């Protein structure tokens, strides 16, 4: 059986609704409120066995910290900005920061960033693998 190649998210918690904007899904512990990316059997913070409720995470957040990677695995283009972004729901995301020079002078702790998506590669079956990225919030968007 073979299916026609399509597109798929790079991680299960990236949701690609057919009729709306992509978003990240969090699992929120209803006992203590901790939010996780991806499924948990029980809460890492309070150990309650759920239930977890799925929440739609904000597309905007703030840059917590970053590193600028100049030496990586073979075939990975360098440099790139490897970032940790805090989302307002109380969860952080490991991501690449794009549309910004790979230069500490262009990056500041706490700068507002927003999520975007793009096709990162094809998988072995020929599907487009959609990844999420964060980028600085554009000035006009911030002023709007």
């Amino acid at each position, binding site marked *: 059986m073979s299916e026609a190649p399509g597109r798929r998210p*790079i991680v299960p918690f990236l949701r690609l609704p057919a009729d709306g904007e992509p978003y990240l899904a969090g699992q929120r512990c209803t006992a203590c409120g901790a939010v996780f990316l991806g499924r948990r059997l029980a809460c890492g913070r309070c150990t309650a066995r759920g239930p977890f409720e799925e929440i739609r995470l904000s597309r905007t957040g703030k840059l917590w910290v970053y590193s600028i*990677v*100049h030496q990586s695995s073979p075939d990975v283009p360098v440099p790139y900005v490897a970032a940790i972004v805090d989302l307002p729901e109380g969860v952080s995301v490991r991501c*690449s920061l794009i549309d910004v020079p790979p230069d*500490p002078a262009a990056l500041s702790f706490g700068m507002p960033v927003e999520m975007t998506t793009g096709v990162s590669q094809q*998988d072995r079956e020929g599907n487009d693998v959609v990844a999420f990225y964060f980028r600085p919030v554009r000035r006009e968007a911030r002023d709007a």
Partner: protein
Amino acid sequence: MRDVYVAGVGMIRFGRYRDRDVPDLGGEALLLALDDAGLALRDVELLAAGSLFQANAMVGQRILQQVGQTGIPVVNVANACATGSTAFREAWLAVASGEHEVAVAVGVEQMGKMGLLGGGGGSGVRTEGVLGSGLMPAVFGQAGMEHMRRHGTTQAQFAKVAVKNHRHSTKNPLSQYQVEVSLDEVLNARMVAYPNTLYMCCPTGDGAAAAVVVSAAKARQLGAGVKVLASVLTSDPWSERDLTLPDVNTLTRSAAARAYERAGVGPEDLDLVELHDCFATAELLHYENLGLCAEGEAGRLIDTGETAQGGRVPVNVSGGLLSKGHPLGATGVANIFEVAQHLRGRAGARQVNGAKVGLAHVIGLGSACTINILGV
């Protein structure tokens, strides 16, 4: 728990041994440690072997095939970079529990020129460089940036760690590298992952180390005086960003608190510290995590020179992971070797004079932390 003593240690120079294999390297370290203790293989009642990349390959048994198959219990341990120190703790437990009189821990690794860890992946979908970085240089770069963000620490202060540890290594004949580098050379070296340049990252390599631990009765017979004051292992508790940026601080702090309590000493009592400087950024974080200075003062502490050889609390006089090398499974036993040598006055040109109490700290990312405090 019974008192446990370190009766002997052994270590081969870290480096590259292309023509040898893991059981051969580990076996050599084991024999060195036995000779140091004045014991024979038939005295050994348990072997704990730590080797990360051959964790599924019965390294301990293969070591015994090299040095003598006596049928003793063998446990093979993997715990990321804390693999060797976890093996040491298993040996300590075996004696402390009263079950055995003599146990040996061996840590061994052969990395060759494998390069940076963590690339690739089985799914055929590449995430490195797409979803940020899971590579150690970036992770510890980010951990350093957290310190920068919170306390205003500078890249130059991180770089001073590399200058210090590379200088220390020139006095250690077992160090993989023994070359001094200046602050300018460190700062101007090729960038690996900001803020860590090449000299601020530990090398890959091969190596092995071993430690023999014994009961108090056996220690008296052997005239062994280095006591294990505390041997503590922790894992990462839930913390705010641990799942995206591994939190190497919280589990070190909890391990330190427990170890100091068990040992009945405080950070002010330490004559030397071997801590997990896998990257220069990491060393400054652990100054605070281990209580060597107050919160936010790590940058100032490296500036003062108090953690250099001859200072108030010398850190990584072996050269540290940055220069001595970091063959993953060997590291945790190698820093037991280092501390024990100083406590016995056998550290040669790098001897910390009059050392009575030393601490060995290891982090395995994912995460595990061991702290062993030894004293005479």
